């Protein structure tokens, strides 16, 4: 996937993602402060705007960095800061790239996840976004092609969301709920799952890759 296609795919996916803002708000309300809906919708809008202003031949690294900056400042929150930091870390692995494969996407996600784990002092099983990112990264890395890779990643992220729900949250606001966090679904992990699902919905059906390339 090259620059324009990558930019447009991101924008379409984020356009789809804002439709989940209310779900994310409600999940974050139960387990935190309810601002995740705002973080995601303001963040998505800011990224879409920033990409519109970006040149069509920006490198994948530049694209990721543009996304990071826009997302970080739109509504500075835990998710915004962690995701932005993750995007910057991921972009460092793309330094020499101008065509992004599904394996590149997997490597990106792994670097991003590792950065989040570091900055957030989090481990797998702490019931955060990390629990969804890492298995998705693995699925992408191991995938035969882009479409099946995405499906596998979605499946892995969904299992992570489901499997961590019965656990106690160990990080961030949710951890203050202590035992009461058990049984509540993690908003951050869900946001990542919804992002993958939005990517598939926006880019698989409505706008197959060829069309996009043709348009540009």
């Amino acid at each position, binding site marked *: 996937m090259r620059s324009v296609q990558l930019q447009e795919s991101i924008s379409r996916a984020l356009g789809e993602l804002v439709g989940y803002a209310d779900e994310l708000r409600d999940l974050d309300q139960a387990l935190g402060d309810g601002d995740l809906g705002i973080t995601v919708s303001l963040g998505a809008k800011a990224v879409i705007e920033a990409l519109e202003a970006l040149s069509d031949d920006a490198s994948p690294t530049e694209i990721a960095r543009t996304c990071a900056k826009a997302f970080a400042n739109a*509504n*500075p929150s835990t998710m915004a*800061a*962690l995701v932005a930091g993750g995007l910057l870390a991921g972009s460092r692995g793309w330094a020499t790239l101008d065509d992004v494969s599904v394996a590149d996407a997997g490597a990106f996600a792994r670097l991003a996840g590792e950065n989040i784990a570091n900055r957030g002092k989090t481990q797998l099983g702490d019931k955060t976004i990390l629990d969804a990112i890492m298995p998705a990264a693995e699925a992408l890395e191991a995938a035969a092609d882009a479409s099946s890779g995405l499906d596998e990643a979605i499946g892995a992220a969904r299992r992570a969301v489901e499997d961590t729900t019965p656990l106690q949250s160990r990080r961030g606001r949710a951890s*203050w*709920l202590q035992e009461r966090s058990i049984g509540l679904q993690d908003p951050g992990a869900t946001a990542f799952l919804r992002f993958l699902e939005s990517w598939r919905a926006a880019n698989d059906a409505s706008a197959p890759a060829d069309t996009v390339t043709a348009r540009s």
Partner: protein
Amino acid sequence: MKKIINDPDRFVDEMIEGILKAHPTLVKTPADDLRILVRADAPVAGHVGIVTGGGSGHLPLFKGYVGTGLCSGVAIGNVFSSPSSQQCFEAAKAVDGGAGVLFLYGNYGGDVFNFDLATDLAELEGIETRTVLGRDDVASQPKDRKADRRGVAGIIFAYKAAGAAAERGDDLDQVAAVAEDVIEHTATMGIGLSPTILPTTGHPSFELPDGEMEIGIGIHGEPGIHRGPLESADQIADRIITALVADLDLTSGSRVAVLVNGLGATPLEELYVLFRRVHTLLAERGITIAKSYVGEYATSLEMAGASISLLELNDERLALLEAPAKSPFFEE
């Protein structure tokens, strides 16, 4: 949603404009977007600067504690949202008098990650920084995970003490040590009776049925440790003081500062009814109140509820609390 506001998206900016217009001799802004306030005489050469920050909606927290003998500056986020790392960094730059800057704010992920980035930015410009986190809410984590607790109203004790230390000329490590020492000896717990409503969404932050209260609530409406039937003022005080005294290991002969804090909509009268019982409970345990604060010091917009904070005192901490200070919202 009944609020006295204009465009909800301009709420924070208009509020800051109001503060600047009401108190021009006490505070000023170095930022075009007004999202930073610093004391009128900042930077004070040779003195340590103290920068706090966090989301809006908690007045007088955080903006209200910028003044002499208090914080030197504040980075201001949207309602209940962190300021950006750029804003945190620029606040530090505006108050740095050459002796370095202490970042002193509540332990919230968004704030932590943004202030951490600001630390990196400050270092690049040769500004030395230290970070101390307010983490006084005993309801948010058990004692063995004290470091992970969130920061609530009790941080004002740290502002007051660290501000006094900076004012008398302590160096950066000393000021940070004072803040850390105070936070280490501060414990807070609150109860909520009604939610807040975010100006931008118009949604209540949580649902609480008639006749119920949330024990251990956070200042953004975070759920506490227990939801139960509304209790009498005395029962609430009993519950909270028992928890705080145990957490701080207070014993007969201990001296404390007490803060009975209103979360927004609760009448001052009710805070005094609470204080009355706190006084009795501490006296029964042989604990002396050397300093009392009753009123709204850290709020959550129009939330009804209250929190109680105790700071265990020694001579040094008491002297720092009693040192002079002046901001638009606080005077000693």
